[in-house]
């Protein structure tokens, strides 16, 4: 009441005079509020209606993986100084966020072998789409070529983005004069390794860019996109310290060569100095962005996935170069052990026996849906039935193995199939 009086009005309605009377509501058609106790009880009841598979018995991937998440990650991201701050517009009061993003940018650039990374994108799918936009703007060409088994949902998002900008998405390996970019995934959606250097050369020979969609953990052992000359590296960062959460939120990463940096979408953080010569961090090259460039911006992205990028930064810092390699190598060895054992089951065979993989691989199995159901009954989240997206892969399941699937878990899986 004191506030209304200070304003000089008698009632709340006097502040709402600009709203036409015919639009005014009596109330919302929603139940009244609940206590914290009741709210949590309702939400927990919903959570209780979901089945959660144990990490160690999850052998399903398809772009979303169970990994060991160090306790340090949540301990940092749950600090309210990080998670309740806004986009760091006022640099002097946001040095924590800005420096963390700067470190993230450096970590991603190191991992991918690229010159510069941005501050983050929504996910792997939109990162692929944004990279295609960059290639379109850079080359002035209007077709992107998708080589091999790129994640089918990434292709769908790429098509939806492309339609707005008049970019055609074609499948194939032969870039032509209209090709803005060749996009490939390493390892691909099935887990198989592609000849990334050859695809990159083919793109360049046609005057197109090469866009590598990379699995970040695999980069501890595989050649970095920058090493084989790709122009843009993108990917999904979920494996870098984030739980699956039914698909999100996670983080899309994008990094590129020096000559493409001005075409990058989204935020970038750089160093600057104050009048006393102290180093600080600021949002940089903002004139590319929507709040300044409006309809001519490189992208419409504003809010990105900063907190998920922070999680990735903590994860990569915790692991360091040799911890990350250990994670990747353990996954590699276990997956190869599992692949050999599965392929020796009666009627089972590797779907692509001549192809190399890292820690996910396709197996052709008799009665795939029944196999998956049987494993579920024993508490195991078995392989992913990829025929849902690819008709030619009927009967093919992809299995994933990481450091969380211990030796005994592999035995349990085999026993369940026996």
């Amino acid at each position, binding site marked *: 009441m004191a506030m209304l009086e200070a304003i000089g009005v008698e009632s709340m309605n006097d502040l709402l005079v600009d709203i036409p009377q015919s639009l005014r509501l009596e109330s919302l058609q929603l139940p009244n509020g609940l206590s914290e106790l009741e709210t949590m009880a309702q939400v927990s009841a919903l959570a209780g209606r979901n089945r959660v598979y144990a*990490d160690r018995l999850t052998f399903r991937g398809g772009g979303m993986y169970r990994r060991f998440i160090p306790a340090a990650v949540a301990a940092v991201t749950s600090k309210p100084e990080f998670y309740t701050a806004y986009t760091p517009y006022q640099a002097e009061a946001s040095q924590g966020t800005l420096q963390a993003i700067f470190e993230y940018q450096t970590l991603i650039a190191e991992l991918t072998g690229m010159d510069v990374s941005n501050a983050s994108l929504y996910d792997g799918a939109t990162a692929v789409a944004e990279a295609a936009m960059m290639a379109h703007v850079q080359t002035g060409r209007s077709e992107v070529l998708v080589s091999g088994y790129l994640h089918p949902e990434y292709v769908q*998002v790429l098509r939806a983005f492309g339609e707005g900008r008049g970019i055609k998405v074609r499948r194939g390996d032969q870039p032509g004069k209209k090709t803005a970019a060749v996009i490939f995934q390493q390892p691909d959606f099935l887990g198989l390794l592609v000849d990334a250097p050859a695809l990159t050369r083919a793109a360049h020979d046609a005057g197109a860019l090469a866009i590598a969609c990379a699995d970040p953990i695999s980069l501890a052992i595989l050649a970095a996109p920058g090493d084989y000359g790709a122009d843009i590296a993108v990917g999904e960062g979920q494996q870098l310290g984030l739980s699956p959460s039914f698909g999100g939120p996670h983080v899309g990463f994008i990094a590129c060569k020096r000559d493409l*940096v001005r075409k990058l979408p989204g935020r970038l*953080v750089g160093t600057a100095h104050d009048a006393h010569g102290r180093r600080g961090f600021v949002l940089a090259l903002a004139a590319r962005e929507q709040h300044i460039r*409006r309809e001519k911006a490189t992208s419409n992205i504003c809010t990105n996935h900063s907190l998920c990028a922070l999680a990735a930064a903590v994860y990569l810092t915790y692991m360091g170069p040799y911890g990350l390699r250990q994670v990747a*190598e353990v996954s590699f060895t276990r997956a190869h052990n599992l692949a050999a054992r599965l392929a020796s089951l009666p009627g089972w065979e590797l779907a692509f026996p001549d192809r190399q993989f890292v820690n996910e691989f396709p197996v052709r199995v008799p009665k795939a849906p029944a196999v998956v159901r049987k494993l579920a009954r024993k508490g195991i989240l078995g392989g992913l039935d990829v025929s849902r997206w690819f008709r030619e892969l009927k009967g093919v399941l992809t299995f994933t193995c990481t450091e969380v699937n211990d*030796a005994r878990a592999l035995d349990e899986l085999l026993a369940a199939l026996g």
Partner: protein
Amino acid sequence: MTTEPLSFELSRPAVDPPRLPDADVPGPAPAGVLPSELLRSRPPGLPRLSEPEIMRHYSRLASLNYSISENFYPLGSCTMKYNPVLNEQAAALPGFAGLHPYQDEESVQGALELMWRLEQALCAVVGVDRVTLQPAAGAHGEWTALRMIAALHHSREEKRTEVLVPDSAHGTNPASAALSGFHVVEVKSGADGRISLADLESKLSPQTAALMLTNPNTLGLFEREILDIAEMVHATGALLYYDGANLNAFMGICRPGDMGFDAVHMNLHKTFTTPHGGGGPGAGPVGVKSDLVPFLPAPTVERTNGHLTLDYKHPQSIGRVRSFYGNFGMLVRAYAYILAMGGDGLSQASQDAVLSANYLRKLVETDLEMPHDGPCMHEFVASAHNLHEDGVRALDVAKALLDRHFYAPTVYFPLVVPEAIMVEPTETESKATLDSFATAIKEIVAQARADPQSLHDEPRNLPVGRLDEVTAARKINAYLQGQSEDPILRWKAPSETLPKDPC
């Protein structure tokens, strides 16, 4: 307070990697199987720190941040309200956080039920028929809505190429329209700060696909003539799009759907208290009226006799805008908030937000210029133009507030007000907080009159003073043009930044 070295600068080669399991099964190592061309030649240049060093590093970084959990964050247009800690607990429940997106539908009925209920609640709040939860942020939602609008016109075999955007609109509006393949046509604001109906009339044409509007507009003013605007837009066959950035102004008071909007995006990270995370993740669901329903991104969540399914069969769908089903963890938080608040609580929240904004506006109306008459809705735009002759600008006021333990309002936006200072107090703030903020503004204005020069040196009490962005930008451009080897946009080991060719 002091600055903190980078993790890369703190790195010590002597630090052992963390203890991790061995493979414990026989099997090859990568180097034994893969061709060398596919192998990494040297390890990535990640820092090497022990866990205690890492925890201290990030704790010190956290101390350099300002956040809503600490104090008032009056950032206009951004709706910085308290993020209930309950939300975090809800999203972290293993029954949510541990779900794989490709689990069998039968095993995720609780997650789908939550999405379905959230959709119903959002429909009720904004007055639409269906909502997609897929978009990851507000701008992503804008673009999704425009794709649907384009698809609807296309299905009617109409070629509409223009999207109208007011000059006071958020920058994401024209950017999303352009990304969606439309030409952007700007509509002018009138002297009263509201959209000029005459200008709108002159810009509407058979080419118009949609008008993008936020109401209240970015000046915090309700578009009184919204019903006339809707009629004008619909009469030409165009659609009306609602930018939901300002939804916190009128939950339970009125609804965009009733105003005539055909598509509405919402920012769960603004109105529905999911945290901003220093720049995301958020979530930007889009609500639509029945005409647009066939074009929703797939899959949708459907409920029949209490059984939930993901429905992919939408032949006219614009497709998929994000992998999986959106930022599910954010959906859990927003749903928990809506449950706890209820219809009564949400209505109260908006009324309190409007009250706070008008109260604060009143307190500072003699200190700063108020370019438009009140009352305002949930935010107001002031101008520091009255300090111009003292050589003091909106930026100086912003920096001086930082020194007084407040975050700064949004400055220099909207573009139609010179020296704009855009303040959104939200329902979170008490009268005492608003009073102390007003006192700070009065002190700063007094200082501007008495000693304007001193304001240019603020902030003084923060880890760094004003940073020289001009020099930084010129150095970045020098790097991008190959005139220097210091990228500025990342750390490089000192030896790598030396010129390759000293000549």
